[in-house]
């Protein structure tokens, strides 16, 4: 691919990067592992999105979503990492105001990564609270019920606290 002769080096690099992205369907450096992409996405996109607003925030959230989707594609057998990425993607969708999509993703954490207790708990709780706060209490109740039934006897006090609170909303 030839660049226009008046292009700055930085522009050329960006164009090359875009070309590679289109070619390979991803935006991460080829050497990056799923874990590295996840860490970078958390650090450089998702966390930062909470500190800005407006267009910048939307842009960072979109980048975070892309990052988590890449992790899900590349994560392979790293189920805990994929569970984290899927839940985090749900968080991004919730922040983008896409409530139903967020709830669907959180729900999938429970079905696809059922053994990942901590991720499942966070996902169900996020779904339940978001639906409850949105006034959709009938939709929230099944999540609270699942939390209570699964985590009421968990050895972790924090899990039991969540289960106990969930019971009050069942």
């Amino acid at each position, binding site marked *: 691919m030839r660049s226009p002769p008046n292009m700055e080096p930085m522009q050329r690099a960006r164009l090359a990067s875009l070309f590679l992205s289109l070619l390979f369907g991803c935006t991460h450096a080829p050497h990056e592992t799923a874990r590295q992409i996840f*860490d970078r996405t*958390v*650090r450089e996109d*998702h*966390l*930062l*999105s*909470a*500190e800005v607003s407006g267009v910048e925030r939307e842009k960072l959230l979109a980048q975070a979503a892309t990052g988590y989707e890449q992790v899900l594609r590349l994560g392979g057998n790293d*189920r*805990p*990492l994929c*569970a*984290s990425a899927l839940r*985090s993607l*749900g*968080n*991004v969708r*919730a*922040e983008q105001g896409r409530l139903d999509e*967020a709830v669907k993703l959180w729900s999938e954490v429970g079905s696809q*990564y059922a*053994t*990942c*207790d*901590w*991720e499942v708990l*966070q996902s169900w*709780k*996020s779904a339940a*609270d*978001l639906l409850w706060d949105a006034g959709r209490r009938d939709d929230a109740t099944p999540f609270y019920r699942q939390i209570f039934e699964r985590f009421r006897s*968990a*050895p*972790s*006090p*924090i*899990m039991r*606290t*969540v289960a106990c*609170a969930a019971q009050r909303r069942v």
Partner: protein
Amino acid sequence: MKRAFLPICLAALALQTTAFARLSVVTLPGRDSVQLTIYNSADLTLVRETRYLTFRKGLNKLEFSWANTLIDPTSVEFRALTHADKVEVLDVSFPPRVTNTLEWRINSEVAGEVQVEIRYFTSGISWSADYVAEASRDEKRMDLAGAVRVNNNSGEDYDNAEIRLVVGVIKLVQDIADLARQGRPESQNMPTTLALDEMESKDGAARAFGGMAKAAQMASERPREIIKENLSEYFLYTVEGRDTIPNGWSKRLPSFQASDLPVASYYKFEREQWGDQVVRFYRFKNDKENKLGNEPLPDGDVKAFRFVTADKLYSFVGRTAVKYIPIGEQVEMQLGNDQEVLCKPTLMNWEKTDIHFDNNGAVTGWTIKEAWQVEAQNSKDIDITLDVRRNFSGDWSLATDTKYEKVDASKVKFILPLKSREQQKLAYEVTTKYGTNATR
């Protein structure tokens, strides 16, 4: 990696505060105190931080983030230390606007200051012990200084922390380690928090001890020490005072200093073990008689030096590693070869005698006599003791004018006191019977 924001913050609606804000929440005042109990054998550290929070009456929100750290979030616990019966955690939620953050919803029946404690496990903090031994010129006395190095790669800075180090592997810690490995969200099984109360009950005494350490540190400018305490199953060292250990840093802290303790230095030669080199050893005992014995000594590296002049110019003797040394145990430090002490065995004569044959003329028994001379030389400026060990096999017997001691069925040792610049020779003849000549 420094965490993106402080681990704990209160939602603005809940509290008044003066600290800086980097998010849409208001940060808490800094930790009032933080205590790290490092279980080295399990890559596990129990963190207990206390803060004074100003609660309002009713609902309060408190956020805790473990992003970019090795904190095990399933182990996180919150409790009020004051007004405990009036402060209750109602719920925990996970705000989607940030990742790896939880939010406690806390109901308080009091308005005002409450001291709270947050406890959790983290990995990534470790410690190692090391020692510096400084032997006197004659290698009969020694100063021994111990230190511990704490390494923090947990992702979190710990400022002004009280540091406690656990020596020894006990079943409780093994259980906790197993739980931690299972419970870490990375591995997604069961959480660790089960063990927190168990650990608390185990180290209850140590808390009071830590307070003493703090008071002692405030009271004087003397060099700090590490205070040690025997807690039956394991040994707890509390580093006197407080230290800041930022993430990514390691810090060396003095542990103990013992002066003028008796030490035995000796030199060993055993070709089968060390080839033709003479190896130097320092030996001492970890007991009260020898000015130690206050605590077991954790395994660690030792660097040994020897003063060589009256004005305390000293030379490097060697370095080695010692294993965990319980109280009352003898320590033998092997410090490498010393080229100023030589030992050279030479075969002076070899003879095959007493040969027996069977009816077909085949050899059935024979005896070999070897005459050896061992030349030992001390080029040092001090008197030493050289332990020369020789190994034999089969049906052997030894004839010599030099006093020796049998170590086991196939080994003898000659103890040679060598004065400075002295050379000695010892001779022995070993007779070994083979075949039908052998009687054992």
